[in-house]
């Protein structure tokens, strides 16, 4: 017999094998998941979950697909959180501090409580990346927030009503589009293709008998 632990799904007690993730424990208990389940691998942020261990005061947060059950775990999933997503035209956005002021002014109401950082399911320094956004330092904001899965738990804990993941999203797009160094070899190659530099080569490959293609493939030189 497997070792079992008692957990409380939305307050109701279930006995489940101790080696399961919270997500699998819900399925073991009999739930058919529709909401609150996405990639099941920690990338999509669909399964944000808040829990408290019986007898403790601290409220913890996690992704249900990435976290093992524990004895006395009170679990509430957060399959949706109403983040504020402002709509903007990336071609008109400018990489200046004013952008944040205009689109997400609430970030300047941050009280510095650090609840967002404590709540982050990815262990990111959320308050720090918001501070970078406040200063218009998009590059640092982008770097610090890069692993964000936009689960929204940070925002659920924020007394200032900040939608941190959306702020970071904007910062990353500004960084990627405007601040990151331009890639010359990419532009050159697109130009070459448009000029037809490779057309003849490719046309030849389109016509080549399979046997010749095999020769080409099996004897191609491979970059070290």
């Amino acid at each position, binding site marked *: 017999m497997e070792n079992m632990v008692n957990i409380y799904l939305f307050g109701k007690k279930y006995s489940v094998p101790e*080696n*399961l*993730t919270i997500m*699998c424990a819900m*399925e*073991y*208990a*009999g*739930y*058919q*998941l*529709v909401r609150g389940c*996405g*990639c099941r*691998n*920690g*990338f*999509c942020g*669909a399964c944000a979950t808040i829990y408290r261990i019986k007898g403790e005061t601290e409220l913890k947060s996690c992704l249900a697909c*990435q*976290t093992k059950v524990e004895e006395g775990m009170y679990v509430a999933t957060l399959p949706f959180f109403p983040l504020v*997503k402002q*709509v903007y035209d*990336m071609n008109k956005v400018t990489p200046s501090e004013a952008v944040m002021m205009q689109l997400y002014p609430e970030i300047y109401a941050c009280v510095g409580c650090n609840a967002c950082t404590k709540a982050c399911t*990815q262990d990111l320094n959320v308050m720090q990346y918001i501070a970078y956004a406040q200063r218009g330092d998009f590059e640092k904001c*982008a770097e610090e927030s*890069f*692993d964000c*899965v*936009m689960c929204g738990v940070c925002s659920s804990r924020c007394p200032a009503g900040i939608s941190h993941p959306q702020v970071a*999203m904007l910062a*990353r*797009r500004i*960084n*990627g*589009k405007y601040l*990151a*160094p*331009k*890639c010359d*070899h*990419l*532009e050159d*190659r*697109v130009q070459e*293709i448009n000029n037809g530099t*490779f057309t003849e*080569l*490719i046309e030849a*490959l*389109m016509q080549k008998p*399979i046997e010749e*293609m*095999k020769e*080409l*493939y*099996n004897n*191609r*030189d491979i*970059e070290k």
Partner: protein
Amino acid sequence: MYSEKFQKSLAAVEAAREANIALEPRRMTAQEKTDLLAAYHPDYKQDEFEVLQIGPNKGDKVPKELAKTLQAHSRITADCVDLETPDYDVDVLVIGGGGAGASAAIEAHESGANVMIVTKLRIGDANTMMAEGGIQAADKPNDSPAIHFVDAFGGGHFAAKRELVQRLVCEAPEAIQWLSELGVEFDKTEDGTMVTTHGGGTSRKRMHAAKDYSGAEIMRTLRDEVLNRNIPVVDFTSAIELILDENGNAAGAVLMNMETKELLVARAKTVIIATGGAGRMHYQGFPTSNHYGATADGLVLGYRVGAKLLYAETLQYHPTGAAYPEQIFGALVTEKVRSLGAKLINANGEAFMRPLESRDVSAASIIRECSTRGNGIETDNGLAVWLDTPMIEKIGGEGTIEKRIPAMMRMFGKYGIDIRKEPILVYPTLHYQNGGLDITRDGMTTNVKNLFVAGEAVGGIHGKNRLMGNSLLDIIVFGRIAGKSAGATCKNVTVGKLTLDHINAFEKEIADAGIETDAVSPKLLPDYTRNVNA
């Protein structure tokens, strides 16, 4: 953090590490690869396949589980919805909210079409989000679209449709440029040069990445752009049946709210199937690296209205799925781990193969090591081999892992395994549907007008085996192609009277073939719920 039973083998791996780093295992010959695949690759296990008895691919072999769902009953009857009063009426209906669907929607919108996305979970709940390693594009001076062509065509066993490969490789650099302009953060050096690596089967380093969140970075940016354009996204709603018009052209879909089960009708001048893959069908009982909704829905929708499949019998088993701990069994361990220098090592500490052969060859080689050669390591989930991640830090310097593959470090770190210091255990996992619906170079199905397909639901781009980094590429290239084509086509379409007559015709085929089945499809979601009354 490995228990006692792993220690002996672990010690062998550690003892041989320096020597294994220096070792350059030789390339297999073409014949060796052919023999290896025939003997060990799951696609070659004949008793796991079944011949289709009905539909456009009648007589073809596909995995048993796919045959069952392709030859299943519709979820609805032809008269259960009122087609005369559609709930939605659009120019372009995109089914699926992954990378291909989002790219298609953006381009259709750009062309001025009235476009909407319907997706059974949320926009971004897709395999795109989980793609870790990167995206190929021949944009370096020592590379060219022609070299990329040879790699992709050869890697796919010379079976791909060349007109599709041509578009894939020739439009790749532009796809990277398009993504960059949307704000996707590719790894670059200070002068803007793309940081590129090898993938299995590539002859040039052309794998572009955004750390090991490449797909996530692309997907969240595309999603943000869809929302910025105010393209309607109807989420938690699945397409369960295509609608044709009286002329036999695609003209919409019957939709079902995943929570309330309410049925809705969407009328459309053009339809784009961008429903993704099939990992959650668990072919041959394999675990999968795919997201929760990967159940081959688009193949079913298309097949029932007569669209042809191509290479539906070929699946990709990613060589390195996590084999331990069991909480992440089947999860993807990106090929980038091997691109950065980690080698595959057997129980005795031997580097048994060149780490970056194409995926099917690598998977077959691992299966051989664990079966007939008896060099696997036993875990609670079956046999596995080591992937020696600490090699990466020795080759690339301390900090390489945290900088280049942070998601991997996090995934194993949660279970007490520090991949900078300890190797990990891997075994092949069901990763990708190589085949799918047959399309023309403009993304339309070859035999149902106004029905387009993009992304993993397409067959023919990758032949019988896809290379790493060509899938993120194809969802962008062919997503954009489908969006542009549908956006242009819809301007000249007049939709005739809507009909679901094909449901009755398909039912008749089922009955005439003597198929007895209680299955309904599309499957929509896998069933992982324990039967609590059993």
